[in-house]
């Protein structure tokens, strides 16, 4: 760490080295200044006035200029400046209006040299001429600037800004005679030191006080100003009218601004309120600081670059009574933490992506294109200078739209629209939904519906099967064996899957497997005793077995995984089952012929495809022909949970609604409510309001059904007396007439009632629509011009 931050810079004769370091001061600092050879720094404040030596590892206190038992107010400094030509000469601006110069060469303890008490109020700023030894300039709260010749006892000239308090004065680097002054009313003035009668130029730089200004060190005639309006502006003063060429928006009022040495575009700022950090900006990228120094715990009051030709050392003093030397290497770079990319998935599967252009093109450069992109040659270099990388950054925004229907969630919308959830018999609903799923190329979902129909259809209602069905059944080669068939996977995933991947069985097969195994003996034993009692027994048994099943899964999983990888040839068989939803019922018939055999004979029972990409069908010794619906409940519950865990809440909710009471008690209310809420939220996202409403209506969760009963308020006027209806019914409590009479047919409206908000008359939707086709007047004859929109 220390090694990292130690920097030695060779600057002609002198060399600067050091590290990030700080020292505690006795009191808050107001201003700091360095001597020309960058070896010492003076700190001045209301209760402090000291000189520190800058050593490699630490600050060393060299001299306390604040002497005497009871220091006068002259020691209370608002500003301090160390002369850049004469190393023994300092000037301070006192809060009582005095301008004091100090001569470090004096032998006595008190180094005070000259005292000018001409200003009436606090002096905000003192400034030595950059090349002239004896010329000192001051700017005060009283609105005047004074120029002193240090060889004389009084000021040589007084400049009246005539625009409120002076906050800063700075001699120009370019013109020997020119200085700039900034004012509290937002103005900046340029003066010729020889002409105290009037300014050469004045312009309004900021709204609100201009707290500081700084000339560019490389004499370009650029002046940076900072104001309470949180902005730093850079002005080109070489033209006739001062022209704003750059503007940096900071997050707090700007108290100090200092150009960074040897860096044309950089400047450092600090704030006088709220913000304690020091920022270094690249004015070409005015939105985000190039570097930040975050060490101070209170307002930073003074910043100064340690050496006028060294850009890596910054000194700062603060109200938190510390003096810091900051190394540029240790600065934090906000832009490094700034996210260069934005990414968001849209509802329809489109993907918005914004990225720094250099990232995209940088990537392109890595590809060996024949005519490689030469626009960004900088990326060929290993580590370009950070300062060069900073400017001119922008992002490219694009939206990737998926052209595959499955990715666009069309299947969801279509499924939601086309599914029937009520209004027909259970079997019809299942068939319809199976068909819908099949048409949308979701065979697994389709099969699930078909199986649900098989499981829960009332055997009594089934038609007697023809002999051909039995024949078909006989062709099933899967009897007495488990088999798992690969179903075509849902389109939404099939394309993305690598084809060669071997499909493996999963725990749910074992579940089915062991479920059957566990139940079968029971079924066989009970077989002879008649089916009524058996139903109860089996249901309970299956429930109890649940826990065992889970443990078995884990034991068997590894061993069985390999065995159930099935060949594609099993595919056609699926259709046999799907096209013969009646198969089990035929089996009943079959069994009726040979009842004794039923217990042992292999017959078909379909289990639900619990796993999303595989269909398990199992041939097993069949149980009773009148297999009761509750027998399947645990399986269906598993299946629903599985769909939900896979994220297909649509399936879970649709099945839940269609099955209704058959399954409801199997699933705890909290889970049901969760599924409903999730599904309704999805439907509303896709603006499927009607479907959403239907689901809410059909749900049996009290928390869901009440969704429809909140937040809709109707304000109705009585159509007779035109006063607001106050009670809940449709009888007006003032005129005791029914308010919902159709104005066209004069009957009480039941169902859709439409009324005019202007005259309160209305009626059957159809009647009013028809009426208003031929007439624009109210059908009640009140003369109101009603409008149906």
């Amino acid at each position: 760490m220390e090694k990292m931050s130690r920097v030695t810079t060779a600057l002609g004769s002198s060399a600067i080295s050091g590290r990030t370091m700080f020292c505690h001061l006795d009191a808050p600092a107001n201003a700091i200044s360095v001597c020309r050879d960058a070896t010492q720094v003076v700190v001045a404040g209301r209760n402090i006035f000291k000189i520190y030596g800058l050593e490699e590892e630490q600050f060393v206190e060299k001299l306390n200029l604040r002497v005497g038992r009871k220091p006068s107010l002259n020691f209370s400094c608002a500003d301090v400046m160390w002369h850049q030509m004469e190393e023994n000469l300092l000037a301070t601006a006192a809060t009582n209006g005095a301008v004091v110069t100090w001569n470090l060469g004096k032998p006595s303890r008190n180094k005070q040299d000259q005292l000018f008490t001409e200003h009436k109020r606090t002096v905000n700023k003192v400034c030595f001429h950059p090349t002239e030894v004896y010329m000192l300039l001051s700017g005060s709260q009283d609105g005047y600037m004074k120029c002193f010749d240090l060889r004389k006892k009084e000021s040589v000239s007084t400049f009246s800004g005539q625009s409120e308090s002076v906050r800063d004065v700075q001699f120009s680097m370019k013109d020997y005679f020119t200085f700039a002054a900034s004012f509290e009313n937002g103005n900046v003035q340029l003066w010729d030191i020889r002409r105290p009668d009037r300014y050469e130029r004045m312009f309004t730089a900021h709204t609100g006080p201009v707290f500081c200004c700084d000339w560019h060190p490389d004499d370009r005639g650029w002046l940076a100003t900072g104001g309470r309006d949180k902005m730093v502006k850079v002005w080109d003063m070489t033209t006739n009218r001062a022209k704003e060429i750059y503007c940096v928006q900071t997050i707090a009022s700007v108290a100090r601004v200092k150009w960074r040495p040897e860096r044309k575009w950089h400047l450092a700022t600090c704030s006088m309120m709220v913000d304690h950090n020091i920022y270094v900006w690249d004015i070409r990228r005015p939105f985000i600081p190039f570097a930040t120094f975050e060490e101070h715990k209170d307002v930073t009051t003074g910043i100064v670059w340690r050496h006028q030709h060294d850009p890596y050392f910054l000194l700062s003093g603060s109200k938190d009574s510390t003096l810091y030397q900051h190394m540029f290497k240790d600065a934090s770079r906000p832009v490094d933490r700034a996210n260069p990319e934005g990414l968001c998935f849209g509802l329809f599967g489109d993907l918005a992506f914004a990225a720094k252009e250099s990232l995209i093109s940088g990537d392109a450069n890595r590809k060996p294109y024949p005519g490689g992109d030469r626009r960004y040659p900088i990326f060929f270099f290993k580590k370009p200078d950070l300062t060069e990388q900073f400017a001119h950054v922008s992002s490219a925004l694009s939206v990737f739209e998926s052209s595959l229907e499955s990715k666009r969630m069309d299947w969801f919308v279509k499924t939601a629209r086309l599914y029937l959830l009520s209004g027909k018999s259970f079997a019809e609903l299942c068939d319809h939904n199976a068909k819908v799923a099949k048409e949308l190329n979701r065979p697994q979902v389709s099969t699930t519906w078909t199986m649900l129909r098989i499981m829960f259809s009332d055997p009594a209602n089934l038609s007697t099967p023809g002999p051909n069905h039995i024949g078909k059944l006989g062709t099933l080669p899967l009897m007495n064996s488990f088999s798992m068939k690969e179903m075509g996977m849902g389109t939404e995933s099939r394309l993305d899957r690598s084809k060669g991947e071997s499909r493996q069985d999963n725990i749910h097969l074992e579940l089915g497997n062991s479920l059957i195994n566990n139940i079968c003996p029971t079924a066989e034993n009970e077989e002879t005793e008649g089916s009524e009692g058996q139903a109860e027994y089996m249901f309970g048994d299956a429930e109890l077995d649940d826990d065992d099943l889970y443990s078995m899964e884990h034991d068997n999983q590894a061993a069985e995984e390999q065995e159930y990888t099935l060949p594609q040839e099993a595919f056609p068989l699926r259709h046999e089952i799907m096209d013969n939803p009646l198969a089990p019922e035929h089996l009943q018939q079959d069994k009726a012929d040979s009842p004794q055999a039923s217990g042992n004979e292999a017959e078909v029972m379909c289990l639900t495809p619990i796993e999303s990409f595989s269909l398990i069908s199992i041939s097993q010794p069949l149980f009773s022909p009148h297999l009761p619906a509750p027998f399947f409940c645990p399986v269906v519950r598993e299946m629903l949970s599985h769909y939900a865990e896979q994220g297909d809440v649509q399936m879970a909710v649709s099945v839940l609604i269609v099955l209704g009471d058959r399954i409801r008690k199997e699933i705890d209310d909290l889970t049901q409510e969760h599924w409903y809420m999730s599904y309704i939220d999805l439907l509303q996202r896709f603006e499927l309001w009607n479907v959403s409403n239907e689901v809410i209506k059909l749900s049996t969760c009290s928390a869901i059904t009440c969704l429809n009963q909140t937040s809709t308020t109707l304000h109705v006027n009585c159509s007779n007396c035109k006063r607001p209806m106050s009670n809940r019914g449709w009888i007006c409590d003032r005129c005791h007439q029914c308010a919902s009479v159709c104005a066209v047919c004069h009957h009480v409206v039941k169902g859709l009632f439409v009324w005019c908000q202007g005259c309160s008359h209305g009626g059957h939707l159809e009647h009013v629509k028809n009426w208003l086709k031929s007439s624009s007047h109210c059908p009640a004859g009140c003369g109101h011009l009603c409008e149906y929109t």
Partner: protein
Amino acid sequence: MFVARSIAADHKDLIHDVSYDFHGRRMATCSSDQSVKVWDKSDNGEWNCTASWKTHSGSVWRVTWAHPEFGQVLASCSFDRTAAVWEEIVGESNDKQRGLSHWIKRTTLVDSRTSVTDVKFAPKHMGLMLTTCSADGVMRVYEAPDVMNLSQWSLQQEISSKLSCSCISWSPSSSRAHAPMIAVGSDDSNTAYSGKVHIYEYIENTRKYAKAENLMTVTDPVHDIAFAPNLGRSFHVLAIATKDVRIFKLIPLRKESAAGSSGPTKLQVQILAQFDNHNSQVWRVSWNISSTLLASSGDDGCVRLWKANYMDNWKCTAILRGDGSPVTGSSSQAAVPSTAGGPQHVLLQASSAGRKKAQLIPG
């Protein structure tokens, strides 16, 4: 297959965030240039900028939409240490004719003393709430007690961690079995502080959020974090963008006593997937609505799509590259042989098939 539609965003600096609204028809972008832009999708699928305004006096890190039930409302957060809530005002006929809408600031949340790095609205069923997190490691929960009044927000809770926070995500689950949950990621670069993702859960008894879990295995800076849409699941899925893409499964363990809700639910944490295919810093992760696809973007300038098979094996299904910008340089021309006719292009690589496909979209 994806086709890229390039949008001239005209932001003056980096775009830091893109966000779709609830119905997927509007989009908001925010940038370091201190502005937010709102884009509306026209009937022919083009995105038009309908509003652009200066939101902050510093870089705007994130922008996010509230549920439309609360109106057309955006929240933004910025380097300038504030977060702001904006509402669209309709009915200004002048602007409407020019296809522009007007957004006004409803509130400024000024509690943070450092850069506010993320802001997120809570799921709708919790009411109008939002959280912010800031670079000094403070997460704040705000609530608007009156959903009709967007200018009044009360600070519900402040949670300080020592690590600077970079991103935040609400668990979208609306189940009453799941307590409200917030995940916060930290981009602190010191890997010695392990556990860059903290998960907080609402404790009914104290009415406060308390730390439920700390993902100790995540030690590198985290830049983005996203809960997958819940869709009726009993568990949570969390994607994390750090030096790689990680997907975690958080399974709430049932409590022994239902009444003892004094502490947070124990979570069983499983890592589902971890990918370093970006070979660089991953900046963003985003889930599709059915939570079957995860998109991630990294310093390599690519978007990768991840998908799980039925075995919960996650695989990369596509790599999307291309800024969709007008083709001026030669490199893009090399990628798409005849770009003269169309200014927009896309490059898609299907990883499974291992082939590249280029498609030309007429501009």
